[in-house]
């Protein structure tokens, strides 16, 4: 059941990219408008070594795992 829900989400994402991705898309935020996004305080992960550690603590103290950090990464939780 849960897998089906995720499958639907994935299919929606794929459908969206399929419909729009092959045509050229005009970026609605121009490169010269990205100065604020380039500020280090806007990085999604300002300190990878620190955030990896704290996610490790959460995974040790709670039953859930994954999905909190950026995509990817290994976690040998058992």
């Amino acid at each position, binding site marked *: 059941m849960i897998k089906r829900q995720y499958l639907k989400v994935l299919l929606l994402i794929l459908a969206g990219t399929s419909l729009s991705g092959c045509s050229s898309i005009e970026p609605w935020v121009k490169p010269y408008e990205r100065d604020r996004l380039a500020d280090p305080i*806007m990085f999604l992960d300002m300190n990878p070594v620190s955030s990896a550690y704290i996610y490790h603590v959460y995974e040790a103290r709670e*039953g859930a795992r*994954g999905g909190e950090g950026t995509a990817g990464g290994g976690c040998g939780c058992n």
Partner: protein
Amino acid sequence: MLMYLHIHCAFLRRLASSRTHLNHAERTSLNFRLRFPIAAIALAGSALPAFASVLPEDRTDFLYHRYDGGGVTIDGPSILVRKSVGKSLSLSANYYVDMVSSASIDVITTASPYTEERTQYSVAGDYLRGNTTISAGYTSSVESDFDANTYHLAVSQDMFGQLTTLTMSYSYGDDTVGKSDDPNFIRDNTRQHYGIGITQILTRNMIAALNIEVITDEGFLNNPYRSVRFLDANLGQGYDFEKELYPRTRTSNAFGIRTKYFLPYRAALEAQYRYFADTWDIESHTASLTYIHPWRDFTFTAKYRYHDQTGAHFFRDIFSRSEATNFRGRDKELSPLSSQTIKLGVAYEFLSDGWSFIDKGTVNLSVDYLTVDYDEFRDISTGAVLGDEPLYQLEASVIQLFFSFWY
């Protein structure tokens, strides 16, 4: 599904315990399972600005971490070095140590306090070609009775004028579980992670990221030391203990979304939510809000995080009898619980004008205060009579002090 992602469009073709020191006879659950090759995440280049096909920054971090709570103290260093080689390759390495001293609730009720050390090494590389980044890594984690090896591969593709980054990742891990009082005890686990993530620039002030992560485990998944308790009227205390027994497979699904907004003055607000569910019937919701405020050479951070979960179907605080169910566990992390975390952090930037080969440096200090309220797991260390034991509560502090240098 991953194959389909690779081929469905032209732009994608360009793509990227409470272990105890045992009473010598019995060890119980490892209260703080330190077996996660976490550095693979740290090495994944995730500090990248969300909109540029560039390699991760060259930087080195020296981190000291300390966890203190529930009778458990864990501290140690983590050193992460990242350096680019030429214009298209970035290499990184991480050395991480956990030094554990445990007298946790599990330990004091069924075994004896212990000390333990875990050492972890990771190496990784990121290769950039056009708008595609290919990352690969390896992590090794070693304890006296637990070895873990993890291999990691990820592909990232910037698209739509670099407004969007799609990342697909896969990792494979194999663990060898031992038992300190039984040299003949050797069990294996395998573990696979599948991840898809999209980072999207929404406006000139706002970015968002969506992550889906599926993890499958197969093998010996319970702790060889931990025990469950069951009713036994023949004993004065009214209960006895027996070894826990988990299912040999577990599949979990996590769906996370986060968004970060640049406020009208120079500060940032980040909101994050994760939904989690697995085949052990654990379901959870996790949400957090973070505020980041720079002032002169300082950057202040405040964060609140809330987590709520149901318990695994085989968790019981006490079973009705010995071997009452096919599977059984009393790991409090698998019980229904809610937790809250408040984090305060400050960073100070120095050498802003550079010095020698160093472009800048920062020193960071943060404290996380964590509280966990367990809905069913009871504190049997109080000596209360059976049925009157209070529900267990945990308070812990997590301190991180680290220096970072960019070059």
